[in-house]
C-alpha cells in the first residue's frame, strides 16, 4: 500500500496551513485511501456507514432503474450498495486514482461491473452530461471542496429537472475550538463545515429546494468514539504518529476529544439533506 503513503508525503499540509483547490482534493483523496486512516475509521468513511447511506438514498426516493451519480465515491461502497440493494445504475466520480481502481475492482468482484462505473474526475467539473441522473449522492465530501458553489452547481447540472439530491455532511454551528480548525480538520470535514443555514443557502443558490433534513449526529458521535479508541490503541501499541500523517497520536487524540465534546454540545453534527432540483 505504499503508493498512498508516498502520495501523502507530497500533498499533506503542514501544521495549521489551509489548503485550497487541487492540493486539498489530492490530499483528501490520499488521506482517505491511506490504510492507517482506513483502520482508524474501520472503513466507515462517513458517520453511520452503510446505514446512513441507505437512509439518504431512501429519503431521495432512489428506486430500481434510476441513474445515480455518486460524487466523491471513494472506494465505491455506497455506489455498490445502491446498485446491489436498490437496483440503481450508478456512476461514481472520484478524485483519487487509487480509489477509482479499487472501486472498479470491487464492482467487478461483486459482478456489478455492468451497472456501476467509476471515473476519475473533479466535483467542480463533473465529467458527466447535463440532466443525466435521477438522483445524486454527495456524502461527507462537499465541505472538503474548495469551491462549494461550483460543486453544487455541477450537481444541479448533472441532475434532471425534478431530480433529487442526497447531501450528507458535517454541520457546525458557531466557532469551533482551535484543534478543530486548520488543514487536517478541513480534511476531516470539520474545519470547513457549514452551518445548517449555510447548506440551505448553498442549496437554494444552486437552484435546489430543500425537502427534508435528518440529523445523524449520534452516528458522528459513535464514529468519533471509535477513532478515539483506535488512537488510544495505537498509542498503547507504541505508534508515535500515524504513518505519514503530520500529527502525533496524542495530538490526534486531543483533536478527536475536542470533536467529541463539540458533538455532545451540538456545535458539531452530521445531517442528511434531501433536496429537489428545480
Amino acid at each position: 500500500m505504499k503508493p498512498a503513503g508516498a502520495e501523502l508525503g507530497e500533498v499533506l499540509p503542514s501544521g495549521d496551513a489551509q489548503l485550497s483547490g487541487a492540493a486539498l482534493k489530492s490530499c483528501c483523496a490520499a488521506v482517505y485511501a491511506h490504510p492507517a486512516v482506513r483502520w482508524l475509521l474501520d472503513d466507515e468513511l462517513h458517520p453511520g456507514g452503510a446505514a446512513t447511506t441507505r437512509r439518504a438514498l431512501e429519503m431521495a426516493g432512489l428506486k430500481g432503474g434510476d441513474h445515480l451519480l455518486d460524487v466523491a465515491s471513494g472506494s465505491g461502497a455506497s455506489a455498490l450498495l445502491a446498485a446491489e440493494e436498490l437496483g440503481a445504475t450508478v456512476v461514481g466520480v472520484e478524485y483519487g486514482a487509487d480509489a477509482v481502481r479499487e472501486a472498479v475492482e470491487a464492482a467487478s468482484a461483486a459482478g456489478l461491473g455492468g451497472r456501476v462505473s467509476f471515473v476519475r474526475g473533479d466535483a467542480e467539473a463533473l465529467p458527466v452530461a447535463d440532466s443525466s441522473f435521477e438522483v445524486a449522492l454527495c456524502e461527507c465530501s462537499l465541505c472538503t471542496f474548495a469551491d462549494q458553489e461550483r460543486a453544487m452547481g455541477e450537481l444541479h447540472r448533472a441532475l434532471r429537472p425534478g431530480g433529487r439530491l442526497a447531501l450528507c455532511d458535517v454541520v457546525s454551528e458557531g466557532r469551533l475550538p482551535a484543534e478543530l480548525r486548520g488543514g487536517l480538520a478541513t480534511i476531516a470535514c470539520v474545519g470547513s463545515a457549514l452551518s445548517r443555514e449555510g447548506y440551505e443557502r448553498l442549496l437554494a443558490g444552486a437552484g435546489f429546494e430543500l425537502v427534508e433534513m435528518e440529523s445523524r449526529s449520534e452516528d458522528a458521535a459513535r464514529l468519533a468514539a471509535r477513532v478515539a479508541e483506535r488512537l488510544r490503541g495505537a498509542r498503547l501499541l507504541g505508534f508515535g504518529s500515524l504513518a505519514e500523517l503530520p500529527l502525533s497520536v496524542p495530538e490526534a487524540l486531543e483533536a478527536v476529544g475536542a470533536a467529541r465534546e463539540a458533538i455532545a454540545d451540538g456545535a458539531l453534527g452530521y445531517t442528511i439533506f434531501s433536496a429537489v432540483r428545480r
Partner: protein
Amino acid sequence: MTPTTDAPQGGLGTTGLGPTTSICPRCKQQLDAELIERDGRVLLARACPDHGAFEAVVYGDAERYREIQRFSKPGTEPLERQTESDRGCPHDCGICPEHTQHTCLGIIEVNTACNLDCPICFADSGTGHQEHGFSLSLEQVESMLDAFVAAEGEPESVQLSGGEPSIHPQILEMLRAARARGIPLVMLNTNGIRLARDPSFAPALAEIGIHVYLQFDGFSESTQIAIRGRSLIEEKLRALERCAEAGVSVSLAAAVERDLNEHEVGQIVSFGVEHPAVTGVFFQPVTHSGRFRADADPLDKLTNSDVIEAVAAQLPEWFRPDDFVPVPCCSPSCRSATFALYDGEDLVPLPRLVDVEDYLDYVTNRALPDLDVREALEGLWSAKAAGGSGPVAERLECIACATAMPPELREVAARGFMIVVQDFQDPYTLDVEKLRKCCVAEIVPDGRLIPFCAYNSVGYREQVRLEMSGHGGNGAAGLA
C-alpha cells in the same frame, strides 16, 4: 435440586433452540434433550423415565447465545483415538471416534491430597482423604504425557493439577518431564500456599519455565471462607510477590459463584492488570459437580454471559460485553476471551482495534490495513506470527483457545492482558453436542483422554478414583 414434576415443555415465552442429548443427573443415562429459550435465557431440558424432568440454565443471555453460534468452527482431528464407540457419547470417552475436536489443554491430576479442604472442590480432594486417595508416580505421569504426545503430536499445553500438585514430592520432576516433551505451555494449577511458604519454589518453577495458574477468588474474607474454607489472601499475595521476583508469569483463576463473589470480578481484573506477575485472569462460573452446593438450583447457576456482563458492569470504562469473543475451538458458549492493552493508565481491549472475526476466519481474508498493528494483532488472533508451521486453522484455534498470553503481545509497548471466561458443565448442564467438541481433557493413568466436563459429570472421576485407590470417593460411582 427438586426435579420438576412435568416433562419439559414449552410455556409462554419459550422457544426451541434445537434438540441435543444430555444425561440424567441422577442415573447418568443418556437422554434426548432440548435447548429452549425462556425469559431470555437458554435452558437445557430433558426427562428421565426413572427420575423425572430436569432443567438447567446453560447460558444467561439467549440473544447472545444465538449471536455467538457463528463463531462455531469445525474441529481438528486428533492423531489418535484411544477408545471405540460402543454405548454412545458420553459413555465411551477416551477419546472415542464420536469426538470432533483434538485436545488443546491436557490436565493431569497428580494427587488427591491437598493442604486445603475447599468446600468448592470438584475433585473430592482434601487433607483428610489421602488414605483413600492416590498419588501418581513420576513414571505414571511420564507415560500419561507420552499418551498425550501420541494423541496430539505437538501438544499446545498441559496443566498439572490435583489435589494440590505442589505438595507432591516429585512435582518439579513431573513439570520438567512435561517441558522435556517440548510442550510449550506447562502450567501448575495451585492454591499458592507452597509458593508463599517455600521461598525456593517460585525460582524452581522459573528455572523449568512453568506458568502458574493460581486459584484467586477475590478479596473479601467471606468469599474465601465460603469457597476455600479459610482466608488465604495473605498467602496469595505473598505467592504472587514471589512469582514476580522469580519472573514466573501467573494467571489468576477465579471460581465465580452467584451472590458470593460475583461482585468482585472487576476488582480481580483491576488487581491483575496492575500486578507485575499476572498476565491474565480466568473466570470460571462454579459448577455443581462434586461437593459444592449439591442442592443448588440448576436454574440459578451463573453462566459465561453473566460473568461477562458482571465484568463489563463493574469496569464500564474498560470493557463492554462484546469485547469478549467466543473462542472457535470449543463450543461458543464454553469459552470467551478478550485481550487488552494496558500501560498503567489506559486500557483498550483488542477487539476494539480489529474486527476479530476477520482474524478468526482466515477464509474470508479481507484486505486488512497494512500497518504494523496488523502484525502485532495478527499474531494475537491468528496463526501467522506464532511462528508455527502447522496448518493455519489448527494453530489459530489453539492460540485463540486462550490457554495463556501469546508471547507476541509482550513485544508491544503496553502490557498485554488476557481475560478468559470458561464455563464447565456439570451433570445438570451437560450438553453432549458441546461435549463432543470439548478441547480440554483429563489425561488419566491408563492413557485415555477424557473431556473435562465428561470426567466430572458422567462418573469417570469416580471410576478412576476407584481404580487408583480402591475407593470410589464420596459419591457413588456413576455409570461411566
